[in-house]
Every structure is written in structure tokens, then in C-alpha cells.
């Protein structure tokens, strides 16, 4: 006497064999090419300059992001990565806001070394926003011409910009949220600053932006899976809902690509990723940072170079 469980198993094997025998299919590996979002053909070199970072103090968002992007670009793009000191961009932005409009701005590399004001060019806060193609735009924005230099030797006099209400210099210097970051955005419009940085490194493509890495907490019902044995003796996965308290991290980077020849923003892309763990689980912030960045890296690289996504498909007869 054969048990019903065995009969069912035997029947399913027979059905499976019949299905395979009747179907003509061939699994084949394919590589799907993803076209870059911007044209980087004018550049052979890339400088990941630095980021304005904020959020939790557990991770140095500027340093870690620069390191990670440089290593990814080195191995997964055709551009040569320039090894330079990481710019303390938040400090530079703060200094630029502090400096009176008539005072000379520091050369980027001097600021990176922590020296005082040294350049001969004034900062340019024209306030005119550059045409920027955010994510989704397939063609890069045209590079606008620099504003004509005014007379007066090498020094370019520009319109002074009054300090923003609650600008970078107005608080304790800590960037905790998106609102704090907003105060620093002007630095990306400072074409003279980026042009000067570009000149120092032979006009590369400059990668910069902002990175906000913050803690998060949530509680509520979540759907989870559990494995059960059904009446036929098979293991099946069954979803169920349960109340959970969770904590985790959110990363919100904005990558800005600047033309080192003109200082103009070519393209910008904003991302949002988050991860949650059970409240009792202890996960180091740096691990979470890398886990979240891992998800974003393909999209970041996809802005610069053709990426190939490997997968399999089924060819049919």
C-alpha cells in the first residue's frame, strides 16, 4: 500500500517530467547594456572632490563616499581617477559665506590643506541656477558659458551675496537634516570655485554633492514569511503579518557632476535608500552605510558609463 503523500510526490514528478519533455526551451545568459545618462567623452579623468555630509556622527559621509566612489570608478569606468586630498566641502562653503564679497576666495587646494585665504579670484555667487538634468533626463544639460570676466587684472569682481538667513555660518556647523543641507547648496553654483579646482587638476570631470546619512525608527505591522508543512507534507512559505519595532538608517545622496573646464554643473542625480532592522539587532552604522551605498552604486556608475546587467532569459522553440 502506497501512502497518499508518496502518490502525490510521484504524480508531481511525472507531471514535471512531462512538462520538460514537451517544452523546448533553452536558458541563456544575457548582458543588458544600460546607456550612460550623461556624455563624458570630453573627459579622460575624474576627480571625486568631496561631499557636504550630514546626519549621524558615526560615519564620516564625506570621506567614506569619496573613497567608495573613487574605488568604484577605478574598477568600473574608463576614466582615470585623480588621487587628491578630500575637500572639506562643508567648511569651504562656510568660509565662502563668511568671507565678505570683496575679499578674495581661497584656492580649493589651499583650503583642503587648511591654509588661509590665498587665491586671487573672488567668489562668484551669481545665483543664476545652471540648467541641470536631474535623474531621468537622458541628455546632459548644455554647458553654459561662464559670465564674462570684468576688467581689473586677474581679479574678477562679482556681485556680493548677502549671507543667507540661517546660512551655514549661522549655526553650530552641524548638518542634521535636509533643511540644514539646503544652506550649503550655493557652493555648487560657484562656477569660479569649481573652474579653479578643475584648472588645478587639468580640467577633469568633477564629482561632488551632498550625503545625508541619518538614523530612523519605525513601528507597525510588517509582512514576514514563515515556512510551514502543508497537509501533503510539502514545505511551503506562507506570509503573515506581525507588529514590529524597527530601527535603521536612511541615506540621501545627491551626486553632482561638474565640468572642470567651465565649473558648470552638467548633471545632478538624487537618491533615497533606507534599511530597517529589528530593534534588538545591533548593526554598525558603517555596515549599513555600505549596504545602502551598494544599492546606489550601479545607478551612480550608470550616469557615467555603460553598465552591463547580467541575467538569464529563456529562449523558446
Amino acid at each position, binding site marked *: 500500500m502506497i501512502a497518499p503523500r508518496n502518490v502525490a510526490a510521484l504524480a508531481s514528478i511525472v507531471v514535471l517530467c512531462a512538462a520538460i519533455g514537451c*517544452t523546448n*526551451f*533553452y536558458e*541563456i545568459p*544575457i*548582458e*543588458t*547594456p*544600460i*546607456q550612460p545618462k550623461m556624455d563624458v567623452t570630453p573627459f579622460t579623468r575624474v576627480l571625486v572632490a568631496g561631499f557636504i555630509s550630514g546626519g549621524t556622527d558615526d560615519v564620516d559621509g564625506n570621506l567614506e563616499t569619496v573613497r567608495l566612489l573613487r574605488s568604484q570608478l577605478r574598477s568600473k569606468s574608463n576614466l582615470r581617477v585623480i588621487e587628491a586630498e578630500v575637500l572639506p566641502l562643508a567648511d569651504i562653503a562656510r568660509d565662502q559665506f563668511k568671507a565678505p564679497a570683496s575679499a578674495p576666495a581661497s584656492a580649493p587646494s589651499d583650503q583642503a590643506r587648511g591654509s588661509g585665504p590665498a587665491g586671487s579670484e573672488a567668489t562668484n555667487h551669481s545665483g543664476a541656477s545652471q540648467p541641470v538634468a*536631474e*535623474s*531621468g533626463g537622458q541628455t546632459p544639460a548644455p554647458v553654459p558659458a561662464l559670465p564674462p570676466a570684468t576688467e581689473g587684472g586677474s581679479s574678477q569682481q562679482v556681485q556680493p551675496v548677502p549671507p543667507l538667513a540661517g546660512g551655514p555660518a549661522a549655526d553650530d556647523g552641524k548638518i542634521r537634516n535636509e533643511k540644514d543641507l539646503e544652506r550649503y547648496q550655493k557652493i555648487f553654483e560657484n562656477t569660479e570655485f569649481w573652474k579653479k579646482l578643475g584648472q588645478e587638476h587639468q580640467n577633469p570631470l568633477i564629482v561632488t554633492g551632498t550625503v545625508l546619512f541619518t538614523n530612523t525608527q519605525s513601528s507597525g505591522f510588517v509582512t514576514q514569511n514563515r515556512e510551514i508543512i502543508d497537509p501533503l507534507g510539502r514545505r511551503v512559505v506562507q506570509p503573515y503579518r506581525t507588529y514590529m519595532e524597527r530601527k535603521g538608517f536612511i541615506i*540621501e545622496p545627491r551626486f553632482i557632476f561638474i565640468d572642470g573646464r567651465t565649473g558648470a554643473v552638467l548633471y545632478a542625480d*538624487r*537618491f*533615497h*535608500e533606507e534599511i530597517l532592522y529589528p530593534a534588538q539587532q545591533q548593526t554598525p552604522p558603517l555596515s549599513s552605510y555600505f549596504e545602502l551605498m551598494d544599492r*546606489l552604486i550601479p*545607478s551612480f556608475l*550608470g550616469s557615467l558609463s555603460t553598465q552591463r*546587467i547580467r*541575467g538569464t*532569459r*529563456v*529562449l*523558446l*522553440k
Partner: protein
Amino acid sequence: MFLRALTVCSMLALSAAGVLADNRSAAKEQVDFGIKVAQNGLWREAQYRWERAVELDPSYAEAWNNLAIAYEHGGKFDDARKAYETAIKLDPKNMLIRQNYDLFKEINDRTQKRRGPR
């Protein structure tokens, strides 16, 4: 008279069926050859063969499926989507075509989707 008309109709139907069968058989040859060359990495040739197959027999869902894969491999996403959709329309119950289409959509959506607020 009626009998004669019926005979003529039957003959016409049979010859049409024969033509269709011929087309399917010719298309099948193209599909088979396309699979062989694709397995050797010659995707352009495979694409050409499957394009011929769907020309010969536009109702051949499997050929449309293969053509969609070739377009996907070549980065022609709009063409791939259309070909997959045609294949599904012709054979809605084919789970393998649906599986291919789902994988294609996942990649396509991932690359086009905006990940955060502007």
C-alpha cells in the same frame, strides 16, 4: 451547386492551412538557427533570424519572445518591450514568456525609476 461551393471552400481552407503550416515550418527553421547562433554569442545574426521568423509567421509567440531577448541584449528596450508584449498577447498562458518579460521590466524600471524626490 451547394456541394460544389462547399468543395471549393474546403479546398481554399485546406490550401490556406497548408500555406500557414509552411510559414510556421519556415519560421521554425529560422528560430532554431537563431537559438544555435545565440548560444554561440552571435546575437546580431540571431536577431536577424528571429526577425525573419516573425515576418514569416507573425503569430509565432516563441519567435517574438526570442526576438525580444535579442533586442534586450542589444539595448533596444522599446523594441524589446513591444516584442515581449506581442508574445504575451499571442500566448498569454506561457509562463516562460511572462518570466522573461518580468525580468526585463525589473531592469528597465530600475534604470528609469527616480529613486528619490527631486
